[in-house]
């Protein structure tokens, strides 16, 4: 077949299809629920220089690592042959996040020449470490977090590297699942290799190489066009992370963002140094966090390539909470990634009111509850993210109850399924109305309250939540939202203060765990909110009458409008 200019388009479509097929293959064959249910993985193909050509993601968090991990393979000058697969989860070198995320890289050859790489990075359920499931909230160094794979061969010339499999099995609490993940992830790389080989056979390796470059360059061109239409200027934001799980903090963080004709630069210099607890991220986590916002303001829908991000420069000295060095703990790195996203977002929000709403609840709010199922007597482990309130935009009220920016195609567990599977009782699952929080001309979305009654003798609760110390930010005169928190009620009364991070909190039968996520920030002066919208919110009991009076300037007139238990009464407009 002749390769004309439109062949580049057909091949670009083909590259996207390859990452789709890799995605489907891994989702289908993985044995880790966190891969096949939560879709906590990313796959893609790169050119021979490690520049990402196409990728498939289930969550936003894998925008950084795929190209980095391939370029690290190249930088290490590893001997590469057909049939090799390299494994890496080292958090501190290229593409590393935390030990649970294991990357596999396979070089792809056509007629003996390297034409590119297939790469996949997924969250394996178990890679050893001090706590079951490897993820934890109170590790003091990386050695407590699991087995480290510093760019080692998993397959060599098509033959499995037997030693690695033995080491993985010996270090995992679930060796079959861990080895199953290795096999499934490697299989999706083979899919990519096969499809690339078919392309080369049909169109010629030269055309495939050219199309890879074209796809990357196209991304850059489109991103630059988008940047050219943007308001140029210098923007800044500062904030504090929460405590680190070991009782330290909060810690100050900051960013300075410059958008100019040449691109966008995000400089995190001045942010706090790496911290003792596991809320640090490393370079790839920082890159993913920043790229999420860059993608949102340029074009959320276009496929992501490394070309797309060429106009983006990230500056941060080593050894910070965003660029931790060995052996800083990084198990809950996603909280620093979320903070990086939120900082850049916060800085740019005033200039991008249509694309960037006010602050969100910001945290993955990862929650784990180790229980005994009262029916079977067998152990059960509930692990889930929580959804929370998103901020209001210039035109739209904030969204209630969505997963965080770093998550994506991530689902909350149905109440009926949770009760059957874990033997707990869910007593409430609904919007949490925090009077005054997120008030604005456009109102912040409400967070959630989810209550678990413990129905077994003993349970252990671990949470690593952010945005507990400080609330989501309001924008353009809108009020801040409300913080995320967890509280335990014993005999109907709080058993202690509210908290955002805790490891292995001991719970007894009858205890109630109340998980509450925040309301997002409001946008604009609440006094400018149209009275009909305020009345509609009152009718829907999304705000209280006191809130309407105090923040929205409406006065009580005594006629009931709601049907709930809040005694809501009709409200007169008082714009004076």
């Amino acid at each position, binding site marked *: 077949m002749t390769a004309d200019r439109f062949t580049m388009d057909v091949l670009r479509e083909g590259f996207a299809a390859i990452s789709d097929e890799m995605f489907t293959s891994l989702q289908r064959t993985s*044995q880790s629920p966190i891969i096949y249910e939560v879709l906590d993985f990313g796959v893609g193909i790169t050119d021979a220089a490690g520049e990402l050509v196409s990728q498939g993601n289930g*969550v936003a968090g894998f925008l950084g690592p795929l190209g980095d991990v391939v370029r690290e393979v190249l930088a290490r000058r590893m001997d590469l042959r057909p049939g090799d697969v390299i494994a890496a989860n080292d958090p501190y070198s290229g593409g590393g996040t935390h030990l649970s995320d294991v990357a596999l890289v396979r070089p792809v050859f056509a007629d003996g020449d390297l034409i590119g790489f297939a790469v996949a990075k997924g969250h394996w359920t178990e890679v050893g470490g001090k706590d079951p499931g490897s993820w934890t909230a109170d590790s003091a160094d990386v050695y407590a977090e699991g087995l480290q794979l510093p760019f080692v061969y998993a397959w060599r010339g098509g033959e499995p590297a037997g030693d690695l499999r033995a080491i993985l099995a010996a270090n995992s609490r679930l060796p079959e699942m861990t080895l199953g993940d290795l096999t499934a992830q490697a299989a999706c790389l083979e899919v990519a290799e096969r499809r690339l080989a078919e392309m080369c056979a049909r169109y010629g390796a030269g055309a495939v190489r050219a199309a890879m470059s074209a796809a990357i360059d196209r991304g850059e061109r489109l991103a630059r*066009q988008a940047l050219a239409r943007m308001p140029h200027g210098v923007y800044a934001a500062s904030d504090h992370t929460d405590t680190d799980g070991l009782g330290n903090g909060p810690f100050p963080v900051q960013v300075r963002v410059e958008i100019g004709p040449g691109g966008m630069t995000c400089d995190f210099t001045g942010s706090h140094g790496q911290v003792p607890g596991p809320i640090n991220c490393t370079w790839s986590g920082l890159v993913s966090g920043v790229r999420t916002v860059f993608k949102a303001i340029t074009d*959320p829908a276009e496929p992501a390539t490394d070309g797309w991000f060429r106009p983006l420069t990230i500056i941060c000295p080593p050894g910070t909470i965003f660029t931790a060095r060995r052996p800083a703990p990084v198990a809950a790195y996603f909280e620093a990634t979320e903070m990086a996203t939120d900082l850049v977002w916060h800085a740019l929000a005033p200039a991008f009111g249509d694309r960037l709403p006010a602050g969100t609840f910001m945290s993955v709010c990862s929650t784990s509850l180790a229980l005994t199922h009262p029916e079977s007597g067998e152990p059960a482990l509930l692990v889930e993210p929580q959804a929370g309130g998103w901020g209001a935009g210039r035109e739209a009220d904030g969204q*209630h109850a969505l997963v965080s920016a770093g998550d994506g195609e991530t*689902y909350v567990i*149905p109440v*009926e399924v949770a*009760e059957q599977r874990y033997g707990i009782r869910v007593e409430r699952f*609904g919007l949490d109305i925090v009077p005054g929080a997120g008030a604005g001309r456009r109102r912040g979305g409400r967070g959630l309250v989810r209550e678990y009654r413990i129905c077994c003798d003993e349970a252990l609760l671990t949470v690593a939540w952010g945005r507990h110390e400080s609330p989501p930010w309001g924008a353009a005169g809108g009020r801040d939202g409300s913080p995320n928190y967890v509280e335990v009620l014993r005999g109907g009364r709080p058993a202690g203060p509210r908290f955002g991070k805790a490891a292995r909190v001991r719970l007894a039968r009858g205890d109630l765990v109340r998980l509450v996520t925040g309301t997002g920030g409001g946008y604009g002066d609440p006094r400018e909110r149209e009275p009909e919208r305020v009345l509609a919110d009152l009718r829907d009991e999304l705000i209280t009458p006191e809130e309407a009076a105090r923040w929205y300037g409406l006065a009580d007139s005594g006629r009931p409008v709601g049907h709930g238990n809040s005694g809501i009464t009709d409200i007169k407009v008082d714009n004076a």
Partner: protein
Amino acid sequence: MATLASAPGRKPHGRFRLAVDIGGTFTDLVAVDTASGAVVRAKADTTPGQLDAGVLKALAQSGVPGEAIEAFIHGTTVVINAITERRGAVTALVTTRGFRDVLEIGRANRPDLYNLAYAKPAPFVPRHLRFEVTERMTWQGTAARPLDEDEAAAVAGSIAAAGVTAVAVCLLHAWANPGHERLLAAILRARLPGIAVVASHEVSGQWREYERSSTVALSAYVQPVVAGYLGSLAASLRGQGVIGPLYAMRSNGGVGSFERAARAPVSLLESGPVAGVIAAAELGRRLGNRNVLTLDIGGTTAKTSAIRDGEVRIDTLHHIGRTPSFPGYPVQVPTVEIIEIGAGGGSVIWLDGADGLHVGPRSAGADPGPACYGRGGARPTLTDANLLAGRLDPGYFLGGAMPLDPAAAERSLARLGAQVGADARAVARGALRYATAQMSHALRLVTVRRGYDPRDFAFVAYGGAGPLHATLLARELGITRTVIPPGPGHFSAFGMLASPMRGEAVRTVLGRLGRLDLAAAFAGVERAAAAELGQGTQGAGDVQVARYAELRYAGQEHTLEVPVPDPRDPAAIAAAFERRCLEAYSFRLDAPVEVVALRVSATAPAAGLSWADQAPPGAVPPSASRVVDLDPYGEPRRVPVLLRAELADGRQVRGPCVIEEPAATTLVLPGQAAGQDRAGNLVVEELP
């Protein structure tokens, strides 16, 4: 467009099974004389706002007398229209205390990953119309707290005061024990005369409270509209002398009486597309192809479904309006699985800011339509590319009823090409290659996702543009056999005629395989399916019951469905599950197997139907040969053009050639041969 009937003036006689399918633009009627196999067709404009008027017009045009109709089968868009246009009833929802917001929270996912201004689907019941009552069922089906009947009565009072016209009830764990829901629904019905009350257990026996709430809320929302529509259509048909039974085509691949349809209106959502898949499965059965991949290409989308081992795949959860970036609205309604791709004849060809070529997903629709329609459309579409490539005959589109304007197509493509220094023909070729790549990737994913290999399938192509693209796609996917049924433009309507009456029941039933008394559990589901099937069968034959179980390994979330011929043989069920696992996941585990849900499908097959549909010839004959771009299987060259009717003598023709019929064009590539079988199917095969 005027209505037209295939045999105007002649009054048909005999006993007819007659199907009327309402589409966006046309209302299609197909009737088969069950004695002779003769086919009658009619087409009327769809009459939005008063859909039954179009139905009656088509019926009048067909000339089939009402009393000669032995079964009337209806495919309607009334349900999906009411939902997408938000024209349903003002609806209230009553739920368990503490769970008022389940419908609004949804599953909290954000499929549009990088859109930080993402908005989730707006609920069909606003918060102030969502009410709570004190009660609690457990997942074991025991009442942890009785229903507070005084509170229920008070809620009825609030609902009466709120001006609603439909009420949905969804209590936690009603799938395990609907006792509280029944009691609550009875209280509400007694106090709310004239208001439709639908309880979740009446429409779904599955767990997951958001999905079940959404199902019952939408059921209540459309119930008054659908009941009114079907009622008035029934009255009109009776007025026309129709005395035979009236059926509606359902998403589960079967038909049900109007009464059943009115009670479970969300079961009618996908009736049209589903009927085509049923027809393809039936065709595959007749041809001895147990694995069939369907291809239905219309103006805006391509639809496909994989039929495996002779069975259409039924999903027990369907999402209305789902796209890769929007989660849609879930309904727990058994629905034949169909995957939609945003590429059809009207898909717009465009260049992005970096001069990259794209086809779709935007569509020019029917109005203005492709540039070559000459209705003012300036943007080139896939149809324009096909025309310029010689793959369509400008004088024989719809049998010559609608002349196309090749100059307009060329102008639109040339204008686009000028931006990148390419001529119109090069753009057409590029767009056709792109569309082939796009569609073949989607088709491959549909099969690969299930662990199937597309090469094990036969292709059945229909819809206006299905045959035109099918042979190219078949070769791309390694499929060696493509079948174009008779009347490819009316194939969905034939599917309705061939569809059995079908009652489907799904129940969440949890337990370990081997420990659970499956026979007892199935008995209840079978009763539900039989009740769903209802009285009176569409054709001859006994009711057939097929059982299926959704299974998984302990600890997994996703399930796989396997047929259960004998519920008393857990070892055989486990073995079938393992085979399915290896196929779908490529691994098996040494873990216990759990039952999650049981499904029973009770069918009363339609009378064996043969259709000898020979499309009426077009107004003009097509040209005897024309220049066709065979890319990527050859340069443009003059190839013979045959009328499909010419193949009736059983002759085989070799590609390259083009086979024309009024409703479709089939491209036979070099290296392929085509011929008609005795049943009138056009079969295109790769030469060895």
